């Protein structure tokens, strides 16, 4: 009696029929690979250096934003003439916290309100959040992408391994001005005299 996938199965006890060798080979190979992926993913969490789980805390928007403002007040850099450094039409402050310090970024429509300056090879504790709606934290060119949510303090330790001028773009739609939302981040190496050039770039050390 013939049948196809569109007809009821005529054989009784079809679940007892033997599985062919081709299917067995494939299921074994496929599931072996699945388990490799599982072990690898868990292994990377414990042994790898790039994991975005971090910690998260519920916060109030006002409380978190106040912490960012305090950080700016305390650590905003000054240029050679002694005036506070900022960039862009909206005067985003350039901020350098001490090595190992806390960097607060409370994104808002449509800006990342601080420009952090980091030292190469040092670890900083980033606190990422939003003052209004969901935003994306897309760090380029290394292409690290994180989700910022209002009311959540997303805590991650960043250890930059290359000097340079990094860019941020928001990659979560956050309103009609979404495409104007960019940010910036510097990684310098003071020990090797790779420092800010005061004109929106870095200089020295042959860089």
């Amino acid at each position, binding site marked *: *009696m*013939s049948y*196809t*996938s*569109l007809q*009821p199965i*005529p*054989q009784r006890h*079809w*679940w007892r*029929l033997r599985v*062919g060798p*081709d*299917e067995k080979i*494939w*299921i074994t*190979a496929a599931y072996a690979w*699945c*388990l490799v*992926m*599982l072990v*690898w*993913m868990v292994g*990377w*969490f414990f042994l*790898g*250096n*790039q*994991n*975005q*789980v971090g910690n998260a805390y519920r916060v109030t928007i006002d409380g978190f934003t106040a912490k960012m403002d305090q950080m700016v007040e305390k650590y905003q850099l000054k240029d050679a003439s002694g005036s506070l450094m900022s*960039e862009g*039409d909206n005067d985003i402050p350039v901020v350098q916290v001490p090595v190992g310090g806390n960097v607060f970024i409370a994104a808002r429509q449509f*800006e990342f309100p601080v420009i952090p300056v980091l030292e190469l090879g040092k670890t900083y504790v980033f606190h990422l959040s939003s003052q209004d*709606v*969901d935003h*994306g934290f*897309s760090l*380029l060119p290394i*292409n*690290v*992408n994180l989700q*910022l*949510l*209002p*009311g959540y303090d997303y805590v*991650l*330790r960043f250890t*930059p391994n290359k000097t340079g001028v990094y*860019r941020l*773009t*928001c*990659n*979560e*739609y956050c309103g*009609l001005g*979404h495409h*104007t*939302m*960019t940010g910036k981040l510097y990684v310098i190496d003071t020990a090797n005299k790779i420092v800010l050039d005061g004109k929106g770039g870095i200089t020295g050390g042959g860089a």
Partner: protein
Amino acid sequence: MATIMATLRNPQDFTTCPDTGLNINKPVANLVKIHILTAVMMLLAGGILGLGVALTRWPAVHLLPSEWFYIFLTGHGAAVLLFWVHIFSVGIAYFFVTTPINARLATPKIAWLSYWLMLIGAAIATVMVLLGQATVMFSAYPPLKAHPLFYLGVILFAVGALVPAFLVLATLVKAKNERTFKGSMPLTTFGVLIWAIIAIFTWVMGAVIMIPTWLWSMGLIANIDPQLYRVIFWALAHSTQQMNIVLHITIWYTLAAVLFGARPLNEKVSRTAFVLYLFALQLGSVHHLLSDPGTSFTWRTFNTSYAAYLAVLGSLIHGLTVPGGIELAQRRRGLTHGLFEWLRKAPWDNPIFSGFFLSLILFGFIGGISGVTMSNQQINMTVHNTFYVPAHFHGTVATGTTLAFIAFSYWIVPLVTRRKLAYPGLAKMSTWIFGLGMGTFALFGMAAGHLGVPRRHWDITYADAALPFDFSAMAHMIMTVAEIGAVIGGFGALFYIISILSTLLGGKVLAKGALPALAEPAGLVAARMHGGTEPQHKGLEVPGSLVLCMVLLVFLIVYYFAQYKYLATIWGIS
């Protein structure tokens, strides 16, 4: 076969296709027609909106102003991801739960009620989007707020889409009571049963998240937690796409049966693969949350791996058994030469086959590989919310589901209407153009994502940004190729829409006894005449399919480790 088909009860409620011998419940024929007609209109609307999006993200064209771009993008997502696929799905679910088991649909009136709910819901939501009152994207993450009617439209649609899941269950119970078939239900009906169970979970999640959000939009609830919303929203939205997968795999098995008289290599294996979906597929909704603040490592690991990759295993099994069924049927018909004669001599000029097989290949190689890779926790942060994401789901929803639906339409519409397929020349081109165009979009979009190009973004030259920034010339070029692919793919969809709408609305009525155009070699007829009578296969009989699968696995392994290799070069993040 004759003995299986002989159990038709209430013959007055059926029309029997003189060519295939399939018995079609009369109310189901009408439901299939109206659902496909409506779904195709949604595809047309969604396609036009998508064209606007593509022509804007094509850097040199940059067609729409920003406000309209975001409106078009929101509308495109809703129209195709929700309305097109799910209205189509419901229509063919009624077919799969009745015809293969000679059943009558339980309460067709309620099916019509569900149809009107979906249609009204879709209309309300679409109008609010087009009025610019709901420019919040398909995902509508609070605290971004849309007009309350937008949420109401989505809720009505979700309720409408929930009803058919219960109708599927009720129909199966009724069929069992009326003993309309002997033995175990066909694989295709089993697939739709799985679809229905996942649908219940999915649309209930929709109510759980959309009703509070609707109340919030009216000011009746003070606050929706943004993380909680994302968790439950994706339990809805990811699962809606998992429903598509279940249904388009059911379509693959069906078309293999129709075209080649194929059956599963082993019923137990194929059904187990569906059951794995049932238990593990929805866990995948956490893929959207891997770069979010609010969840733990253990929770992410359990869910993102589908409880140790059970659903991935299910997909990989179908990846062998679908082509394997064809290979076995073809080899038994004498096409035994080499590894691939069975495939080479398949009816490639028949859009039912070309659409089906392209869907299988593109879904596996593009949608599947990108999906499995990006759902690894650490890799996810290198693609989250980049252009990689839409590229991936065009690999699944466009070249997978939509292409399978296109191929299936060319079979089911002539079957239920008894009309000749209109414009078969356009139909033949449509599958190739759509598949290759959307495949190009997906592949190049993935490349753009690897360069960090953001999704849902109007202007990657950042002309108006406070802190200037631009992507490399390479990124612009890749986006250009991707969007040209999308536009070309759109023509494929247009050819399909013209062919199917013309068939539905004015196709030539077939004389009795004439095979529905393009369904030859009519596998069901072939199966009745030559179909294998032996039980399931024994030896290593599908080497060609096994080789295809191994190639896929090698691609996946190489691509996967390439991502981790890149990851190891960037900043320490912990």
